[in-house]
């Protein structure tokens, strides 16, 4: 691992395996693609700076997730102050949420969830996907589909309730959440 080419290959692997999912994770905090990428890039660069000591990192994956989480939490704390928008509960909720879960650990769960989404009623799925995948605001969805904001909310609630019902047993049988 001391040779320069090895290092390059090592970091290429990190990018190919983790970059996109780390960005998605960062985006769940900062709600902005560019900021998410900047944060992830900065973390990998930092890892590069200290590459001689990467051997001491027992799990690179959880190190990276933790670093993204901490950096994002710091970042949103700064942002909140800057905006003078004192929503400390929101930050606290982000902390709790990310403390408990690594959303990218379980492909099995992912498959189940995607299957469940496909089984949702048409309109419900449409709304859920627009919100979840296209990142549209509820108001934007309501304008696009010409339905009320309340109806958008109701459909998302319904979609998540369906997912929740389906996996109720699944999550309660897990110890790691």
């Amino acid at each position, binding site marked *: 691992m001391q040779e320069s080419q090895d290092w390059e290959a090592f970091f290429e692997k990190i990018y*190919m395996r983790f970059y*996109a999912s780390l960005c998605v994770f960062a985006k*769940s905090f900062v709600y902005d693609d560019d900021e998410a990428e900047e944060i992830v890039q900065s973390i990998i660069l*930092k890892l590069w700076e200290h590459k001689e000591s990467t051997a001491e990192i027992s799990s690179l994956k959880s190190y990276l997730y933790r670093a993204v989480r901490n950096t994002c939490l710091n970042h949103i704390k700064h942002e909140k*102050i800057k905006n003078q928008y004192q929503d400390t509960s*929101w930050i606290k909720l982000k902390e709790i949420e990310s403390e408990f879960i690594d959303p990218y650990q*379980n492909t099995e769960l992912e498959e189940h969830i995607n299957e469940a989404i496909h089984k949702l009623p048409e309109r419900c799925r449409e709304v859920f996907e627009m919100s979840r995948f296209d990142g549209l605001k509820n108001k934007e969805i309501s304008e696009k589909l010409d339905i009320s904001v309340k109806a958008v909310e109701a459909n998302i609630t319904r979609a*998540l309730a369906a997912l*929740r019902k389906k996996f109720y047993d699944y999550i309660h049988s897990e110890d790691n959440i």
Partner: protein
Amino acid sequence: MNTDDLIIKYLTNENSAEDNAALMDWVLSSEENKKEFAAICRYWYTSGRNKSEKSFDAHNAFSEFKNQTNQETISPQTQTVTPQQKISKTKKSLITPLWRYVAAAAAVVIFVVVSVFVNQNNINQQTIANTSATEKEIILPDGSTIYLHSHSSITYPSEFNKEERTISINGHAFCEITRNEQAPFIVSTPLISVEVLGTTFDVNTNNSKANVIVESGSVQVTELNSNQSVILEKNERVDYEKNETIRTSINTDINYLSWKTGILTFDKTPLHKVFADIERHYNCSIIVSNEQIYSEILTSTFEQLSLEDVCTMISSAFPSISYLKEENTITFYN
């Protein structure tokens, strides 16, 4: 609103602060709720994973990464460089876009502006007190820029008159004065006044001492009580203490502007001086287990780094030295 709605609006980032407060109460009220909340968040993120990842291009990001790191030659010999070389080598690339972003954000955050409007011949006098931990940039009516350090205040008019531009500063500020030979610029402080035509300088005053360092141009510093004055040129400084004689000296403190630039530079500097600058910059205190540590020599530049990062870099520069951080106190030991 029921809990489901609150969670969904939280996930779509449409909750108000009150909604989030209500949700937090619910989440914290039991372990069960906490699990439930985490689980719903987990469905949410997991369900979007594949599609969301497509908007991030790992190949592109990796080439960008290579560009940034290639400036630093990677070689197996890295292991054998001396601590000083090693630390100077890493300094540049540590400044990541995020740090720059955070620093820029920090520059504008947390300040409380107290404005006092006093009507004086139709000219409003405005007072701004910076009570935050970070600096605040103030642009004056003539285009001059004042960087106000934390816990400092400035009073200036909404409009300058034609003969003279007068402001007052209490505390610490860096001034970039727009040149205007017709109207001298006067900074008045509790003990001294500083008169300039156009220049950049740092002024740090309170009721018992005053200190002025000139970065460019020249200034005239006048002690208010005795009316004694001295002219200061580039790189000269005045360190005046109340009731003493005012005199100039050459400025040897290269880090005097670190509060504004975020940059600390050390050039074959003994650690006791390094620590003094770090203490001033980060407002922390540093102690050593062994006085020998003070005489180690460091050459390095730290740009916009956190205190932790700076300590880590110092301890990695000197393999025998480690550090321990407890609140605001750092102990270096060997």
